[in-house]
């Protein structure tokens, strides 16, 4: 009897817990609405939505290259399995065509879909929760006036029990700090605007902040560097590896144009980001730059001094002060055997990277290269192997890939040489293995030419 009571008590308690959990997790379905025709939205609101969607880089995750914009279905690999982005076109059956604005607001704020299902944080609602109602209204107006596309994303491929969505309640409990960002009264209006854009819709931290075992951003290491699609998203805090420290002006120029003469061009997933940011007004670009540069903080006097020296050196070089004799230093065969990295550099790299064509189309002087200076060589491995494929019909940096001619050891030798020559940082380790994994696709890297969105250019990044 006693045992029975104990069991009953356990059942009751368990039931209550389960009920509580479900009750806590449960979100009501918001009734479907036949959402109004496009004409109902104020064009000014839509126009604002264009800019906001650009900040959010929505199109990048919600579009499969080669398919219609915002129709979803893009595979987003996570450590827990593959999640497919959803169709956010106004198609009533397969998209968000029956979502009321309230439902949209809730998705952005709480990470819950119209039917009441919890969404996986691959949709970065831990950032989007910061977006104001007013901005969500504009985004909603923008999305509801896109071309409706009938497309159903494939089901997610997640390991049990992660495919049980109510568990996300726990994740949210731990990591979702719901609601708008409180304004920092000590900072300027511009700084606060920048913080709002960068921390909210811009979700910079989604790539630039390292993640913990549960896939959440490590708040204590805000902007300390992460990764995306096989590329390093460099630290954009005080530990930024850029040889010349970023400041507000250089960041603003970079975000606006996708390159900066002292930093080179954006590539990998960041190229999409800077491409989108081109739609923003200068004031917003400057605001983001103000905020991010404040997170980076004032560089140490040592960094400043090193940067000044570097600038002077570069300045001298671009004025052509290198003696003609210097150009005769092309390696002889003897050098090639003794220091193969140097010989490869001189033969294959120097003609562009020490050439006369200025940034962004000429090769960057490697002493300015963040990639050569970074703790992890992944990005320069990617670029060396796969190059920078040309953008279709647009002026863009173009670099040939060298995967066809450089073996793993040769790339390793080349990069080791460049690290030694162009950076004060310690040598990289395990280079050849990293090159091999990247080349074979064991480590997946996405390198696609910018061909617009409705063509599917081949991923030249790795053998698939």
């Amino acid at each position, binding site marked *: 009897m006693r045992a029975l009571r104990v069991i009953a008590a356990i059942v009751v308690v368990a039931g209550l817990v389960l009920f509580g959990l479900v009750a806590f997790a449960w979100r009501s379905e918001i009734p479907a609405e036949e959402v109004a025709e496009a004409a109902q939205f104020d064009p000014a609101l839509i126009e604002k939505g264009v800019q906001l969607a650009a900040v959010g880089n929505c199109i990048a995750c919600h579009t499969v290259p080669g398919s219609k914009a915002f129709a979803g279905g893009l595979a987003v690999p996570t450590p827990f399995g593959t999640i497919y982005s959803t169709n956010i076109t106004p198609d009533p059956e397969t998209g968000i065509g029956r979502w009321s604005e309230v439902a949209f607001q809730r998705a952005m704020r709480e990470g819950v879909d119209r039917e009441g299902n919890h969404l996986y944080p691959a949709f970065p609602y831990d950032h989007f929760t910061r977006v104001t109602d007013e901005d969500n209204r504009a985004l909603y107006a923008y999305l509801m006036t896109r071309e409706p596309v009938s497309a159903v994303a494939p089901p997610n491929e997640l390991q049990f029990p992660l495919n049980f969505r109510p568990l996300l309640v726990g994740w949210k409990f731990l990591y979702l700090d719901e609601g708008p960002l409180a304004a920092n009264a000590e900072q300027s209006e511009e700084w606060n605007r920048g913080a709002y854009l960068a921390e909210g819709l811009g979700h910079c931290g989604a790539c630039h902040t390292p993640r913990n075992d549960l896939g959440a951003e490590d708040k204590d290491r805000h902007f300390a560097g992460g990764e995306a699609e096989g590329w390093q998203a460099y630290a954009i805090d005080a530990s930024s590896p850029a040889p010349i420290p970023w400041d507000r002006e250089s960041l603003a120029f970079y975000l606006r144009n996708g390159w900066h003469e002292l930093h080179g061009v954006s590539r990998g997933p960041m190229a999409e980001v800077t491409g989108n940011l081109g739609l923003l007004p200068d004031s917003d670009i400057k605001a983001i730059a103000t905020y991010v540069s404040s997170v980076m903080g004032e560089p140490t006097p040592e960094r400043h001094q090193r940067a000044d020296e570097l600038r002077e050196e570069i300045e001298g070089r671009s004025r052509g002060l290198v003696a003609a004799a210097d150009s005769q230093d092309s390696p002889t065969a003897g050098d090639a055997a003794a220091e193969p990295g140097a010989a490869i550099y001189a033969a294959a790299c120097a*003609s*562009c990277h020490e050439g006369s064509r200025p940034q962004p189309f000429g090769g960057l002087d490697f002493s300015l290269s963040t990639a050569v200076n970074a703790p992890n060589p992944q990005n320069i491995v990617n670029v060396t192997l796969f190059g920078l494929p040309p953008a279709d019909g647009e002026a863009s940096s173009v670099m040939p890939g060298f995967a066809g001619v450089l073996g793993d050891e040769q790339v390793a030798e080349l990069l080791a040489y460049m690290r030694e020559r162009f950076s004060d940082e310690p040598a990289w380790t395990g280079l050849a293995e990293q090159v091999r994994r990247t080349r074979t696709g064991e480590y997946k890297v996405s390198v696609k030419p910018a061909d617009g969105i409705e063509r599917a250019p081949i991923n030249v990044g790795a053998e698939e």
Partner: protein
Amino acid sequence: MAISLNVNGATHRIDADPATPLLYVLRNDLALNGAKFGCGLGQCGSCMVMVEGEAVLSCVTPIMLLEGREITTVEGLGTIEEPGPVQAAFIEMQAAQCGYCIPGMMMSAQALLQKNPAPSDEDIRNALSTNLCRCGTHMRILAAIRRAGEVMQSAGMTGTSRRTG
């Protein structure tokens, strides 16, 4: 110091600065006209050759990286009397205007067809993404590569087998 290059099945001892891009050695030392100088920057594809089956831009590839490796130029695909399938297809489709970019196109095509005997149009376009043509011969180039693929497939010439020299 001389470097040994294997071009179109023949071995050549080349006495040149190891940093010399392959293109100049092919054109001047070996008197092979197929690979063309277009930009010297790896941007246009007119210098394309194959190195062990991969399309490679010879204008930015120093010979020091190629010692002993199998290099194929357009001269290795066939001769004017006996053109190879890709060459024959370009002639059949009259896929040239000035023709300057065409050898590079053919080498990109050859590398593609050896790996993928039945490429889709999308595959062909992707394989030619670095090759530029200024005369606007693109439609015929695409047609010629499709045709070459058909011919090579029916003759069982794709896969790893390859014609050199």
